[in-house]
């Protein structure tokens, strides 16, 4: 990379402190990512409370319930695990089910890798911990179009992490006051926000192909395949379809 000599030259000749400028930009992106993820909190809060109630019903202690949110930080798999704990499932099967539900993260992480490989191992390891469907969705387009750096993803990750922990705490404190927080239909916040984030992609034929194939496969898989395998297969099939259509043109 020739960025460094350029930076030094600019600093010398123009008196510009580029490093300070870049740091300010990163802080701005961090905040942007945090704020842009906030509309999703409407869906996160009832989901987090519902998870907590399910975990409590399954017999997990408050500390274990919170620890799962802090360490696993993956809503759908935590919710499913709570159900398995309640049913007295074997430990290994709970862990394997968690793995299957979260396999789709492999694709999210892999698609970000080319754009984050300049970061140190530790920074990549830290960023990876917070990757979720939601924070990825908010940040990925700007990162892939190189309009923003990793700070945007970090901000989105933190936004979701904080709201997930706070809603777990809220569930623990509220106890049985709310019987079914998901009854209001606030779970719709997720597909609705993904719809908004999908729109900018639907300008090219390959992207249309990716979306249509993935949507169709997900629908079929949801009805035919056991568990959560459908998400991985649909996302993989869809993105492959996009790549093949692009190649043909």
């Amino acid at each position, binding site marked *: 990379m020739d960025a460094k000599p350029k930076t030094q030259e600019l600093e010398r000749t123009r008196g510009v402190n580029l490093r300070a400028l870049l740091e300010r930009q990163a802080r701005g992106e961090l905040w942007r990512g945090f704020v842009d993820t906030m509309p999703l909190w409407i869906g996160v809060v009832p989901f987090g409370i519902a998870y907590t109630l399910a975990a409590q019903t399954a017999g997990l202690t408050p500390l274990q319930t919170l620890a799962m949110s802090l360490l696993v930080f993956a809503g759908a798999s935590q919710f499913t695990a709570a159900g398995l704990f309640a049913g007295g499932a074997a430990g290994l099967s709970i862990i394997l089910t968690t793995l299957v539900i979260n396999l789709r993260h492999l694709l999210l992480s892999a698609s970000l890798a080319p754009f984050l490989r300049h970061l140190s191992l530790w920074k990549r390891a830290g960023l990876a911990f917070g990757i979720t469907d939601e924070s990825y969705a908010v940040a990925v387009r700007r990162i892939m179009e190189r309009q923003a750096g990793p700070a945007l993803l970090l901000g989105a990750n933190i936004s979701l992490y904080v709201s997930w922990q706070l809603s777990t705490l809220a569930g623990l404190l509220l106890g049985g006051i709310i019987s079914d927080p998901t009854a209001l239909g606030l779970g719709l*916040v997720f597909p609705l926000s993904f719809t908004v984030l999908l729109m900018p992609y639907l300008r090219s034929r390959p992207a249309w192909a990716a979306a249509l194939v993935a949507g169709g496969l997900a629908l079929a898989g949801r009805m035919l395949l056991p568990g959560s395998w459908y998400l991985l297969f649909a996302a993989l099939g869809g*993105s492959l379809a996009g790549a093949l259509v692009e190649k043909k043109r």
Partner: protein
Amino acid sequence: MNTWLILLGMALVTYATRALPLLTMRDVNSPLLERTLRYVPPAIFAALIAPALLAPEGSLEAGPHLWAGLAGVVAAWTTRNMALTIIVGLGIFALLR
């Protein structure tokens, strides 16, 4: 198995799915893989949207989820505004339920 051990195992396998590609992938040498990875965003979004709107309980149904979702699609298409799209979708859902 001890509950704490199960929680630890869940945390480890979940972190592995998030971190392995990001930590191990160096250069993407295959053009097909490179292209495929670029279409992950629209594919994963559609894979998360379609079942949530068309089969919320696991079988096909044209119910409030679908109508709320379609209203959301129109709002998203015309405004690109996330807060507005969420309000429109949730509003329609509340009316129909």
